[in-house]
């Protein structure tokens, strides 16, 4: 009996030690690779998504068909395959990228396909009456888009776009398959060294979970700040203007 307890005690101490020692080893690639990979990919993916969505909404001939084709391809094939084609496939045409760049390209292109659909549907969810009212006060198409449709679409698109950001954070682990040393591949290596795969992957999972928890907090605080509520601009100048008009109001009545 005593031996067993001793055994458990030893093993417990050993696991805790491994976890503590490996924590910074995981955190460094997490901060350096996982997070930067996520941010760069999301940034480029979002810009591309906006363009792909806008050419469809604006119904630009040729470009719209191309956009549909693009979305069809990148949603219809596995992300892993896209990574492999860019990293392993393109070199046969003389195009070489290091793993990190290849990963950013693949994630951006893939994300753009999904996010463009989110943005497109958000734009189409803005009631047509908003656009009509914009035209009737004399705005042109561009002004209607920039001043009215896109700000409203942004609010509609925000939660699903943020979901795709959270999804991407975890999908970056796929980059380990094209030699990028991100958090997942480091966890795998340490697990192999100590023969403690369960605890190592639990620890990596915990870090992913923490990132996503932070992101979720960020999301909800952003959503609150995006609400079109509560009076703004209560500067004294504004008050003065108001007073003036109220007086005028009485006069007219």
């Amino acid at each position, binding site marked *: 009996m005593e031996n067993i307890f001793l055994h458990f005690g030893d093993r417990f101490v050993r696991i805790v030690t491994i976890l503590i020692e490996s924590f910074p080893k995981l955190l460094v690639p997490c901060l350096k690779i996982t997070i930067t990979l996520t941010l760069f990919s999301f940034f480029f993916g979002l810009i591309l998504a906006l363009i792909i969505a806008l050419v469809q909404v604006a119904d630009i001939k040729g470009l719209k068909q191309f956009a549909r084709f693009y979305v069809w391809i990148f949603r219809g094939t596995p992300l892993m395959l896209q990574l492999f084609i860019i990293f392993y496939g393109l070199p046969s045409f003389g195009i070489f990228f290091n793993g990190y760049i290849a990963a950013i390209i693949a994630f951006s292109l893939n994300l753009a396909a999904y996010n463009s659909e989110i943005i497109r549907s958000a734009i189409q969810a803005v009631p047509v*009456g908003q656009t*009509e009212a914009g035209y*009737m006060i*004399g705005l042109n198409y561009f002004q209607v888009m920039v001043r009215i449709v896109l700000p409203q679409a942004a609010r509609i698109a925000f939660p699903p776009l943020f979901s795709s950001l959270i999804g991407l954070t975890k999908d970056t682990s796929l980059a380990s398959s094209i030699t990028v040393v991100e958090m997942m591949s480091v966890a795998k290596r340490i697990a192999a060294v100590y023969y403690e795969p369960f605890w190592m992957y639990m620890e990596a999972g915990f870090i992913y979970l923490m990132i996503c928890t932070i992101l979720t907090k960020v999301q909800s605080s952003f959503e609150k700040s995006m609400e079109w509520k509560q009076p703004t601009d209560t500067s004294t100048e504004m008050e003065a203007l108001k007073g003036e*008009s109220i007086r005028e109001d009485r006069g*007219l009545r």
Partner: protein
Amino acid sequence: MLGVKNLHKSFGSNQVLKGIDFEVNEGEVVAIIGSSGSGKTTLLRCMAFLEQANDGIFIFDDLKKDIRSISKKEIKDIRMKMGFVFQSFNLFRNMTALQNVMEGLTTARKVDKETAKRKSMEMLAKVGMSDRANYYPDQLSGGQQQRVAIARALATDPEVILFDEPTSALDPELTGEVLEVMVKLAREGTTMVVVTHEMEFARNVADRVIFMENGVVVEEGEAKKVLSDPKEEATRRFLRRILRKEEEE
């Protein structure tokens, strides 16, 4: 000043307007009445180019042209001199009441911000909404939203304002405040075309009433005459039905 001749509009095989002649003169208030499906809203929307008419002549000030041949540029110029008030208000949800009213001035007409703000506050005061200038549409009642929408239409000094059933989406107790504003505008000599179900308003405020049915103008004339002593049987039938409904309410 604003008018159409022989206006035709179909949605697919459904002919909604079958050769409408319409005209409004400066300072005049014209009410367009008729049951739903008669084409009165479509007529209004065609004149604002929110619907593309299939045939007809469009008249606006000195412009007189085949309605199909009017360019995008001309449409924009026409809209610059036109106000439109929607049944469902359509205030920009991402802007405060004040910003809604200012938008046509600052963005479309490049008026400087200070002037635009002053003018917009003046318009909000006119519709009795200056104390809600910084509220977003979602924080306002339907009647309040519609009054802001009227201020928005007024801010750009339009030559004519088109009203598309401005009180139909409102609770009965809120129609009064909107009608009150419209009466005020009419008294000030604003040129107005009003598609409406408010017979009281049409009788008391409109100079002229147009009764439409099945895409044609059935009867037209001085408001009081048409509404109290209609010549056409169809008009009489419509008025009887409306009155009965009003009594039930």
